[in-house]
């Protein structure tokens, strides 16, 4: 009953999506309000049915109803409740259902909160959403149906991949999907604008919150995924330039560019065509990510589906949407009116530079992801790894970071680079001092590391300078400053936090990669390992029975200079149903640094292979993105309209066209 109702609800959602993709468009053509409003109620009903379908699948998993093939294949009756729930999206079919549920909820939100949109724009946007939804409902129902049944239900399920039995699964995929799918809204808005042939500053105002929401979730999702890989895979690595990671990084880069170009469009009515293109590209990259993960072209922990029909189906969807939207763009872009003018040295100019660097960085990642795949198809085995990205992506980003503090301080329309540089002097000096101190302190590692840390400090200092400039800190009486700080748009605070987050993450990355120390050895009881000033004594090994696994726990006593600090208990879990094991690393946080212990294989004589890492300031890598997301939320909470007050011309200046 639950299973079949859930299945039928999904089918009804498909029916509603099909109606929603046609009727509102006819309505918009005829200017019939009732027909256009069908989009709204259909989108809400679609949300209701997909939501019901998703809840049904969750209930089936919680009840361990193994008459449903998806539950049988990915669940186990002994699994703790939380993993029964998260296991719903820990597999291909269920995660696709989560994908469309999120898609439907974004559609529903546009329907519910889109009162400030012109009727025909809303109709168009929801119709485009429905196209995407229909394609994916069909994909799920035909190739990856989570509600298929087994006539003779087995007594026990096959359990979830042990690596995924972690709290990370509760957070990482939903966040990431909220990000991926959130960009479908800006895509729909872009297609709607192209179909209507009208685009202007107001459009950017309406798209802004949706892009921001998607960006916030994508940022958190990527950071969460990186932290999860860090503690779960047992190697202490947090970024591998794995194609799947790249698949999430590319929409993030494009989305970040979109966020900034939409800003120019909203405030100055410029960069319109480019913004539309970015909207299309961002979502296309999200779809590409979906394709890479699910088609079986790559093998990784993410690639649950290796069924070629699914790959072909997604490729078809991919071609349809990317090809269709880009041809529509090519056909209609020229008819869009050009917008405001600005000089090369101006806020707009800085944002164009930002977009340029981000797009090139994104293209580099795209190349690095697809080139090995193409080569593999031609029977050349090769991998593009960290060295490639160090040579290409890293310099681009360094350049970008160098420009980050300048941007927010330049005036709109025409800016004064010299003035801004003077105002950034403090931040620059701070950066130099830090470089000198780090250099003197360490004298080891890469010569680039102190410079990179200096760059991070410069970015943070720049964000702080921007805030103090705007509030008149140190320049005006304190009361005035406070007053101005309160009056400052929250989006300005948001931008400062997000930019500072970049600098913080950079410092974390540099410290972790340059000064991390590791100790790999086979240890016996009472052996002591010395790592970065800490002494770790192996107190002993013990066995324990978990709900659906058996684990071997090692106990380490951590002390520093003879003073006992803590006990760390890394473990190795054996999951009998799948016959596989996972390592549960133990983490000890000291400030922003971490000690990391993970276990290898035990030898016959009671010794065990141990990997111990000391990772200085590693947590900054994830605090940065969290700060960025916080900045995004501040900006999102700012319901005020944005005006880019252009600096009036003093002398005659030749203006550059916007695009």
């Amino acid at each position, binding site marked *: *009953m639950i*299973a079949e109702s859930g299945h039928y609800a999904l089918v009804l959602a498909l029916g509603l999506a099909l109606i929603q993709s046609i009727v509102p468009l006819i309505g918009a053509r005829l200017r019939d309000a009732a027909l256009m409003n069908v989009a709204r109620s259909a989108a809400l009903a679609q949300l209701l049915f997909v939501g019901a379908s998703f809840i049904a699948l969750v209930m089936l998993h919680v009840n361990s109803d193994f008459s449903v093939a998806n539950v049988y294949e990915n669940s186990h009756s*002994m699994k703790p409740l939380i993993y029964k729930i998260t296991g719903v999206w820990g597999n291909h079919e269920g995660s696709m259902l989560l994908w469309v549920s999120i898609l439907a909820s974004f559609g529903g939100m546009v329907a519910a909160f889109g009162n400030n949109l012109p*009727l025909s724009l809303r109709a168009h946007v929801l119709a485009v959403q429905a196209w995407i939804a229909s394609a994916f409902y069909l994909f799920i129902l035909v190739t990856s149906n989570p*509600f298929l049944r087994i006539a003779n239900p087995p007594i026990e399920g096959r359990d979830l991949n042990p690596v995924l039995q972690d709290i990370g699964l509760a957070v990482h995929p939903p966040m990431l999907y909220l990000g991926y799918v959130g960009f479908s809204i800006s895509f729909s808005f872009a297609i709607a604008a192209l179909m209507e042939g009208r685009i202007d500053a107001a459009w950017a105002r309406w798209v802004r919150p949706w892009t921001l929401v998607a960006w916030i979730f994508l940022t958190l999702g990527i950071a969460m995924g990186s932290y999860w890989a860090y503690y779960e895979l047992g190697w202490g690595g947090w970024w591998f330039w794995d194609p799947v990671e790249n698949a999430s990084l590319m929409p993030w880069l494009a989305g970040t560019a979109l966020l900034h170009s939409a800003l120019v469009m909203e405030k100055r009515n410029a960069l319109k065509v480019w913004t539309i293109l970015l909207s299309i590209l961002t979502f296309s990259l999200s779809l590409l990510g979906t394709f890479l993960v699910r088609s079986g072209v790559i093998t990784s922990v993410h690639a649950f589906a290796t069924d070629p029909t699914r790959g072909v189906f997604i490729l078809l969807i991919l071609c349809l949407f990317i090809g269709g939207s880009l041809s529509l763009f090519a056909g209609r872009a020229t008819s869009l009116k050009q917008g405001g003018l600005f000089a090369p040295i101006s806020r707009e100019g800085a944002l164009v530079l930002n977009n340029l660097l981000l797009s090139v960085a994104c293209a580099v990642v795209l190349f690095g992801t697809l080139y090995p795949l193409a080569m593999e198809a031609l029977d050349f085995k090769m991998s593009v790894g960290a060295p490639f990205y160090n040579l290409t992506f890293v310099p681009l980003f360094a350049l970008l970071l160098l420009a980050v503090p300048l941007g927010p301080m330049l005036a709109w329309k025409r800016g004064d680079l010299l003035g801004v540089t003077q105002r950034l002097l403090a931040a620059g000096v701070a950066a130099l001092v830090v470089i000198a101190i780090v250099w003197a302190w360490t004298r080891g590692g890469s010569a680039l590391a102190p410079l990179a840390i200096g760059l991070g400090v410069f970015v943070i200092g720049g964000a702080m300078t921007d805030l103090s400039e705007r509030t008149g800190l140190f320049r005006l009486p304190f009361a005035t400053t406070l007053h101005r700080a309160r009056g400052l*748009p929250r989006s300005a605070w948001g931008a400062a936090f997000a930019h500072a987050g970049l600098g913080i993450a950079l410092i974390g990355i540099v410290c972790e990669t340059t000064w991390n120390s590791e100790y790999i050895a086979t240890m016996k009881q009472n052996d002591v390992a010395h790592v970065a000033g800490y002494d770790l004594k192996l107190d002993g090994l013990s066995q324990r029975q978990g709900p659906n696994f058996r684990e071997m726990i090692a106990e380490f006593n951590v002390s520093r200079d003879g003073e006992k600090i803590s006990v760390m208990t890394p473990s190795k879990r054996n999951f009998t149903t799948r016959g596989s094991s996972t390592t549960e690393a133990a983490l000890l946080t000291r400030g922003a640094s971490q000690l990391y212990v993970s276990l290898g294989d035990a030898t016959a004589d009671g010794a065990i292979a141990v990997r111990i890492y000391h990772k200085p300031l590693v947590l900054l890598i994830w605090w940065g993105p969290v700060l960025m997301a916080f900045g995004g939320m501040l900006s999102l909470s700012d319901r005020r309209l944005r005006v880019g007050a252009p600096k009036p011309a003093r002398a005659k200046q030749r203006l550059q066209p916007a695009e």
Partner: protein
Amino acid sequence: MTLWFVFALMTVAAIFAVLLPLGRSGRAQNQGSEVAVYKDQLAEIERDLAAGLIAAPEAEAARVEISRRLLAAAGSEPASEPTSSLKWRRAAAVLALAGLPLIAISVYMPLGSPRLQDFPLAQRERGAGSGMALENLVVQVEQHLEKNPTDGRGWNVLAPVLVRLGRFDDAVRAYRNSLTYNGESSERRADLGEAIAAAAGGVVTAEAKTEFERAHGLNADDPKANYFLGLAAEQDGRKDDAANIWRALLAKAPADAPWRPLVQTSLARVGGGGATMPALSDETVAASKDMNEGDRNAMVRGMVERLATRLKQNGDDVEGWLRLVRAYLVMGDRDKAMGASTDARQAVANDAARLRQLNEGLKTLGLDG
């Protein structure tokens, strides 16, 4: 029925969602417009100016720019009033009323399984007494043994059940563990050999033969070891040896030994003569798996036919029906098994207790629904 009622309700709700806006005729909609956005932006400038966030000349420049946009937007606002096209609205309504159920049914019917009930864990555990209980118990015993792998009695209990469930590889492992923790015995060796042979599809492999020889070494009169050593000889083509082994076995066997008929049949097969057709017992059917294809079919088919005829005359014998269905399944004839279970249901339809017994038995055989 409830399921279809729920489906109908859901369909009605979906249709209603499409029809609702169509029914509302051209009332004034509150919708946003570009003009509103620009007006708000102008107000924003005043606020920023008052807060001292932007200077007066910049505010003036921004005001000029936005006013320009405002004029442009006001000019391009659609002049035509919203129309209402009755013809298209009707078409949309028809699409919802007819198209939606049509799409839903035509997509759902080939994919869904509306006749299958939910089968959550809680219900499975409650359903004791049926075949499910056995598998449940097996799972429980296995979980127990996973935690206490040295429990020899547990392995002893588990192994034969695994054989009956057809999980021969697991049974082999269980018998090995049983031997390890319970010590040597001819029965256990012979059982292990039987499980190995069953895992190999009835062929007495060299590995299995070693086990039977060990059992024979422990107890020269062990009937199972002797029977299978004979079978091994037969499979090797040494029919005379096989006949000798079996003849010796029969000579020593008590008159009421349940396996007598089986050995006699085997003896008859290799030309030892003097075999009488045994009644169809479970053991016979199971043991017949170990014979070669042609012999097995010939033997079993004859017996099965007789049983079928008997049941046609007297259909009250639930055990008999189940045996017949199982026999068909063992022979790999699923259609006949389904047919027989239908016949059985009809035969005992008037007796609720028998019918339940039959259904539970059929479920054990994996033939429910």
